[in-house]
């Protein structure tokens, strides 16, 4: 990685905030055109949400396989400076350029010396629930975020660390360094692309679904971590007792499409139908002997190949039941009873028992970018507004600031990649104009 201060011309530089698929794609599309890109990611590795998925719809590609080459490309690109475990503190407009201040958190591991061997993880005595596994598995207090992490460098979670020093002693390259401090980096760029991505709706709010307390009611991302090839348990099992579930329900629109503020938000999160169909099908192919029911309002299989994928899931035996689930109650054995009004083959109120229930949670923006740009227009849900959404859905109201991915509105990977390319293009055209082109 080049030294962050090594920029010669701010007007040919872009700051990309966020290292998920949107940020990575925008960074590549800009750097490939000859612009210098600073890609800042708050986690210790790029990858965002996509790298946590087991498969992507409708092609059933493994997201690792298709995304890691781009992650590696971003790390190796001569024109991209990758700053991980870092956040943008300030981006102040000074005439044509933005004066940017970045805070790089200390990993307590020397990035240049660490070779990603993982000996430190083996030495560490502390176990902590793994964020990458969505709480399913454990990681150590010093850890490499995941197998395909870029950069492949360990990081110390100081809050969980007991400072025993075992990692420091075992590290073959003497990379562990507890004297590291946070680093302030200052840069100047001509344009900014916001690609800060999303988080999920908070399940603890949903009392009628157990308020986050029922062990066998899990969020959808956890299913991906269970299904993935190198999953913590090597199988799809349910949290309460490790049994393989034979009756599974998926509930769509959890936290979405409702005007009842206690139940969620009114907008559609766009991707849940498809990722649920994908997960349902994967579960059937994985477990074989299993009944999978999907409770839905509408199945929004709108993209290329999506409708056909939906049909195949139906043919594979996934049962789709139109109706919203009103309540889940938990039985002593960990099973769950769903109460819903369905229409279709069966009509009316049903109560059905399941061994595992998956909530397709809605998407919410992860950060409020007004921290950096107070003049940025953001809608009531926190998504960035674009003044000309029909013909220029990446330019924000702030000149030189562009947006891509779910930071603008929920969308799937294809639409994110396209929008990231669009943001890169508009930023490039903007800079060309600034440079007198």
């Amino acid at each position, binding site marked *: 990685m080049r030294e962050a201060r090594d920029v010669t011309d701010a007007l040919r530089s872009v700051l990309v905030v966020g290292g998920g698929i949107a940020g990575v794609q925008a960074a590549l599309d800009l750097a490939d055109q000859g612009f210098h890109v600073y890609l800042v990611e708050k986690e210790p590795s790029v990858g965002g949400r996509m790298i946590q998925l087991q498969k992507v719809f409708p*092609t*059933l*590609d*493994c997201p*690792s*396989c*298709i995304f*890691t080459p781009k992650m590696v490309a971003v790390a190796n690109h001569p024109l991209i400076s990758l700053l991980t475990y870092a956040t943008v503190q300030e981006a102040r407009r000074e005439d044509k350029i933005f004066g940017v201040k970045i805070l790089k958190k200390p990993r307590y591991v020397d990035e240049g010396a660490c070779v990603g061997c*993982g000996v430190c993880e083996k030495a560490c005595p502390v176990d902590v629930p793994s964020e990458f596994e969505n709480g399913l598995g454990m990681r150590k207090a010093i850890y490499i975020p995941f*197998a*395909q992490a870029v950069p492949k460098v360990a990081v110390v979670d100081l809050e969980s660390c007991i400072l025993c020093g075992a990692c420091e002693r075992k590290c073959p390259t003497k990379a562990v360094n507890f004297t590291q401090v946070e680093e302030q980096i200052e840069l100047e760029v001509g344009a900014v692309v916001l690609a800060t991505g999303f988080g999920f709706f908070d399940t603890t709010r949903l009392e009628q679904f157990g308020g986050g307390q029922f062990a066998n009611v899990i969020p959808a991302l956890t299913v991906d971590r269970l299904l*993935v*090839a*190198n999953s913590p348990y090597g199988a799809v099992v349910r949290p309460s007792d490790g049994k393989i579930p034979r009756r599974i329900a998926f509930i769509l629109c959890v936290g979405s499409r409702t005007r009842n503020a206690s139940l969620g938000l009114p907008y559609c999160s766009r991707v849940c139908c498809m990722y649920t169909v994908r997960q349902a099908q994967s579960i059937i192919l994985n477990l074989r002997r299993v009944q999978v029911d999907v409770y839905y309002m509408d199945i929004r299989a709108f993209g290329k190949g999506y409708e056909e994928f939906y049909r195949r899931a139906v043919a594979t035996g996934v049962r789709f039941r139109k109706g919203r689930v009103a309540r889940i109650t938990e039985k002593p054995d960990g099973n769950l009873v769903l109460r819903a009004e369905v229409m279709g083959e069966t009509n009316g109120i049903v109560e059905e028992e399941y061994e595992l229930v998956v909530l397709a949670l809605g998407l919410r923006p992860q950060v409020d970018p007004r921290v950096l740009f107070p003049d940025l227009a953001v809608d009531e849900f926190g998504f960035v507004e674009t003044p000309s959404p029909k013909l220029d859905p990446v330019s924000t109201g702030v000149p030189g600031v562009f947006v891509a991915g779910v930071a603008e509105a929920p969308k799937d990977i294809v639409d994110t990649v396209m929008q990231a390319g669009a943001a890169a293009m508009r930023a490039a055209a903007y800079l060309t104009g600034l440079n007198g082109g």
Partner: protein
Amino acid sequence: MSGEEVLDMEGEGEYEPLILMFAEEQCSYPCADTVGLARLSYPPNVRIVRVRCCSMIPPELILDAFRKGVDGIIVATCYPQDCPYRGVERTRERMKRLEPRLREMGLEADRLRVEAICSICTNVFLQVTREMTELLKLLGPTPYKRAS
């Protein structure tokens, strides 16, 4: 089972089959890397040759490898939808056409295996290498001598 037979089986236990694997740089080769990364084990007698696409392997090279004394060959392709070159079907067909030639050479067709392995399909990788090793142990060593 007589004592002699038991001894014979033990004798065969010393034989570690030599397996050649052709792995594609986009999928099966990185999968072998991921296996190592996770410190998972498979028989050390697997020798991996990196290719861009398994469709670049001349069928004659496979037969030649058998003549030179390899016990088994695994051709590890991408999944068809992941393959950047659309070579999976071609590879499968060509390898299938080798089966009668192998039999002519006095070799069991099962010594050649074509398998799709994606870049994180570590269990598939382990399963295939393990199964191939066990199968070759059952089939016994190749009748072709290896040059020393």
